[in-house]
């Protein structure tokens, strides 16, 4: 059983991490040379002239993956409380979870069969 105090060391660690990040970034900032130039400040594009906006729309598949992740991740989150108390719930709980897994699989197969994850198409 942990108390709110047990989280204090994490703050230490966070402070150390931030400190390291800051020191190294500032160090590099002050130690390194600085050279400016319009050509130089351009984005890298294999040496050819920059063309168009870099933030071009990308394949909707990535988008789909993100949305599916949100959904499935939430479904997985539902398992956590169950998994922790899994022994207390016993057989009844297991049956309920089987139903839940069943629904999970239904959704999963739907997504699969509808081709949401077919990247080569």
């Amino acid at each position, binding site marked *: 059983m942990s108390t709110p105090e047990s989280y204090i060391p*994490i703050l230490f660690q966070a402070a150390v991490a931030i400190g390291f*990040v800051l020191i190294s970034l500032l160090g590099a900032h002050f130690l390194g040379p600085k050279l400016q130039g319009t050509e130089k400040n351009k*984005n*890298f594009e294999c040496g050819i002239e920059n063309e168009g906006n870099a933030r071009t729309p990308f394949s909707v598949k990535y988008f789909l993956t993100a949305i599916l992740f949100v959904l*499935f*991740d939430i479904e997985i989150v539902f398992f956590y409380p169950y*998994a922790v108390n*899994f022994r207390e719930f016993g057989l009844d709980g297991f049956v309920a979870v089987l139903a839940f897994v069943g629904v999970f699989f239904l959704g999963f197969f739907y997504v*699969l069969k509808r081709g949401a994850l077919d990247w080569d198409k």
Partner: protein
Amino acid sequence: MGILTFKLILVFCLFLLALTVAAYSTWAERKVAAVMQDRMGPSRAGPFGLLQPIADGGKFFFKEDFTPANAEKFLFIIGPSLVMFISLITGAVIPWGKSLSFGGQSYALQVANIDVGVLYLIGMVSIGVYGIMIGGWASNNKYSLIGAIRASSQMISYELAMGLCLLAIIMMTGSLDLKVITENQSSGKLWGVIPWVSGMNWNVFYQPVAFIIFFIAALAECNRHPFDLAECESELVNGYHTEYSSMKLGLYMFGEYVNMFISNALMVVLFLGGYNFPGIHWATEHWSENTVGILSILAFLTKTFIGILIFMWVRWTLPRFRYDQLMHLGWKKFIPIALINLVLTGGIILVFEHFFK
């Protein structure tokens, strides 16, 4: 020595350890590559090139800190910082060893002993994606953006399978506390029948499938070969950190290696018995607490380093996946397998509890 003082010291030790391991991982990586390709590897700086990482690190400071003109300045800095920051604080909940005693008081070798350690880990790993995404977006470079999107897409995809594997372990232990998970692996009969050695009741013997999936997912989470599509040189120059240089690039690189270290440590905690070593019970009874503590730390680190070596071995052995293959593997193979594994675990545990107790 107060508990907080000890924790502070532990934090610094851990910080140095992580940085050292990360630094020397770069060295080890080149050495392993060299051995595999029958070369020498770094050898100039110091014996066996052991000072090479220090030279590399120093060099980062003296390179030009370049920022493209049309990048989002603030986000451009936040990206690498976040990656480094997250990877450094992830290790806070991992039990690095059994315990040490100073002045008659026993200190657990864990920075923060919280009862939701697993959730903390999952949360931190999820935030890690932001660092890459922000960096790639802020650069305002096509390669960076594509690399970042690929990286985040890949990471979130494998996170699902990873989470499901974690669940199988949580089901077995019934706790989200990493310390409890570790302790659970120290005693008891293996498979309920083989009592021959203490400290070897590892989860990997019960959950081989989960372990394998977790291992591969960890590779993908770290953007390691064969899943390094986010930065595959032949297609995307340098992926999401194409525009980065100097210490910002250093933070990305370091962050990755720290991540690799932490992933392996996590794997050790979850599947490979954590700091347990064969005969730990006997040792606890007969040897002093500090001896056992140091032994346990060594055991933990040994297992972790072996894991890191295997990561490197994989890197120089397997070719890179295609993106569709990567996604197929993650979504179509691992998720259902991990889920079935989860259900089977639950079923078997229930059957055993019902009939054999």
